[in-house]
């Protein structure tokens, strides 16, 4: 029969392999469920079907579009071709301004209306999120 050493080594390798496969499987599976896609207002217009997954929308905050009340903020995100209405109740980051880039995370109500759960802060006045830059560029 095989020696104890060989058996142990074999067992060890099998265990490592099983853990590895399980790890990869687990990670890939929850990546599938928890990934948040980024879309520009124009891309949303072209969506063939709407699902209720969380997404990010980015672009510029349209001039004179911010409307604030006691429990929510409404504004319009535009990529200068299409725009989308956003309603949001939550904390507002420092660099949230009209005419500046913004990324909002939340759920689509329909093609024209987005309900945001989070507005992402960017901490540099000259900084433009790469997605927003791209969304505005083409």
């Amino acid at each position, binding site marked *: 029969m095989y020696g104890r*050493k060989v058996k142990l*080594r074999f067992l060890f390798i099998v265990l490592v392999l099983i853990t590895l496969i399980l790890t990869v499987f687990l990670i890939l599976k929850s990546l599938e469920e928890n990934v948040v896609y980024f879309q520009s207002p124009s891309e949303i217009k072209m969506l063939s079907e709407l699902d209720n997954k969380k997404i990010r929308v980015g672009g510029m905050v349209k001039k004179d579009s911010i409307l604030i009340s006691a429990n929510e903020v409404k504004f319009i995100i535009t990529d200068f071709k299409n725009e989308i209405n956003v309603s949001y109740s939550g904390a507002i980051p420092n660099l949230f301004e*009209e005419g500046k880039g913004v990324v909002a995370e939340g759920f689509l109500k329909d093609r024209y209306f987005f309900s945001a759960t989070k507005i992402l802060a960017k901490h540099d006045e000259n900084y433009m999120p790469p997605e927003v830059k791209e969304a505005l560029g083409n």
Partner: protein
Amino acid sequence: MLLSVIGHYSLVLGLCVGLVIIFFSIKNFQISEYLDVKIVSFTFLQLILVFLSFLCLILSFVFSDFSNETVFNNSHTTKPLFYKISGTWGNHEGSLLLWLLVLTLFIFLFLIKTKNQPIKYKILTLSFQQIIIIGFFVFLIQTSNPFNYIYPTPEEGLGLNPILQDPALAIHPPILYLGYVGSSIIFSSALAATCLNIISKKWASHIKKWVLISWVFLTLGIMLGSIWAYYELGWGGFWFWDPVENVSLMPWLALTTLLHCILVLEKKQVLTSWVIILSISTFTLSMCGTFLVRSGILNSVHTFANDPGRGLFILVFLFSLVLISLFVFFFFHKSNHNELNNFSWVSKETSIIINNWFMMYFLSVVLIGTVYPIFLDVLSSEKISVGPPFYHKLIVPFLIPFLLAMAIGPKLKWVKSNLNDKFSMILLLIISVLISFFILKIFEANFLINTILISSATYLFFITSRDFFIKKFNNISQNIAHFGFSLLILSILFNSLFSSEIITNLKVGETFEDSNTKIFFKSIKQKEEKNFKSIIANFNIKNSKGITENLSPELRIYNQPNIVTSEADIKTSMISDKFIVINIVQNQDYFNVRYQVKPFMLWIWLSVLLISFGGLLSLFKKKYEQ
């Protein structure tokens, strides 16, 4: 102007000295009876040159010498002196110079502090380290020279990003870098030891000191960054799974794994290949961290304007380092085939191997979560982000067996053992389950996973605190660190379960009221400071018990650069933090108010301090024994 010239040329000289050191090392390696004094003096010279260059940069910042491009981009005459100095490493060029300074400092300390190790090993470590140092010199001089010259000299600088003007962030980079760069010593010496085939118990106890040093600094560095994010970014949390945070967590996980592995190697001369692989990956992950943060690839709140050329350089450099180390590993490493001889399932080393597996699992979760979006972007140009739910879902359940192993593992003996006091350990387990069950029952937060998680954390808590009271002081540093970890997990759990938050928009004089809390926006006043205007709001907050707190969050409008920042007002107590932050929305009367009650926030920081204190203690104990 003069300072820039001195700084620049001492960098160039430092690079030359690096080449000279390599030349002498090769010569000395062939004789190898004694360490050539020239090598030590040249290493010292290199340290002095880099220090001189760093000093010049600091002085340029202090004197606001705007003919220097780095100073022009990151400083301003009205900035307080403290932030002029800390601004030196608050930018890309300066922070790399700091990296280089720490690199040269550590290798010098390594040379003079390492005794009772073969001369060849010291020389070889020095050579590997010099390769890294030269790489950084070239990188600095070529792509990110801190002494670039602008003509005509501008009147005024662009100023430092105000969110970086903060005491915690002023010391965060140096501390973090001490941790990062400490891993380079581990990397070089692991490679050197592999080449000479001297990976042994003796080597393990020698390198353990360096592992502990970098581990303590890395832990503290991450904590400082986290504290800063907590009160400065106004998100009211301490960890956001932001890519930039993740890249500092990854080397920490690898380093912690390595720390535990070294213990096994020190006692039993097993797991040698694994220790080498971990040493290499810790440093690689640190370099990756620098690469990802500095190249601008990461889509993160921390990304400031960056240059892709730099990223490419670090990538190529990193790639060649990995190639060298892989070559060394496969070519020189002779694995010890007697490793598994005295192996038993119930022993300390088994529990450490279990710890290693979980650590590697956590590491791969964080790694994939961080780099997957980058790869997807490159391959399919689809923009995605991976948020906290991903990490929570994958990491939290696996903390349970991890915590249990942490509680039981240290109780086991090396080689083979049975548990001695089984009875009391099982009793403690039952008590912990009951306690956590009741806590969750009382506060009506009944989730199966939370109950089990809190039970296992409480269990670790009990086991470790019991050891403080009964005689077992043989490994107090380990006990403190594990105790700190149980405290950390408990405070994080209670913090996330019982935090409450109110977000609303208020005008001055208005009141927000719900079933538990009443927030009265009393007044605002304005104040003029040297480099910013501040709006200080005053809130009266009444909780359900009728206690009124007075909180004054602040908005700062900096003039150079023109940025608004929110300064949260936090009332800290042992039980909970009360956190309030305001923001203004584009010239409207409404202020956006965010009020949070965060239980046990202070304990999160305290437990991290305890963990690093455990590491520190172990370091000094080691020295004391020798």
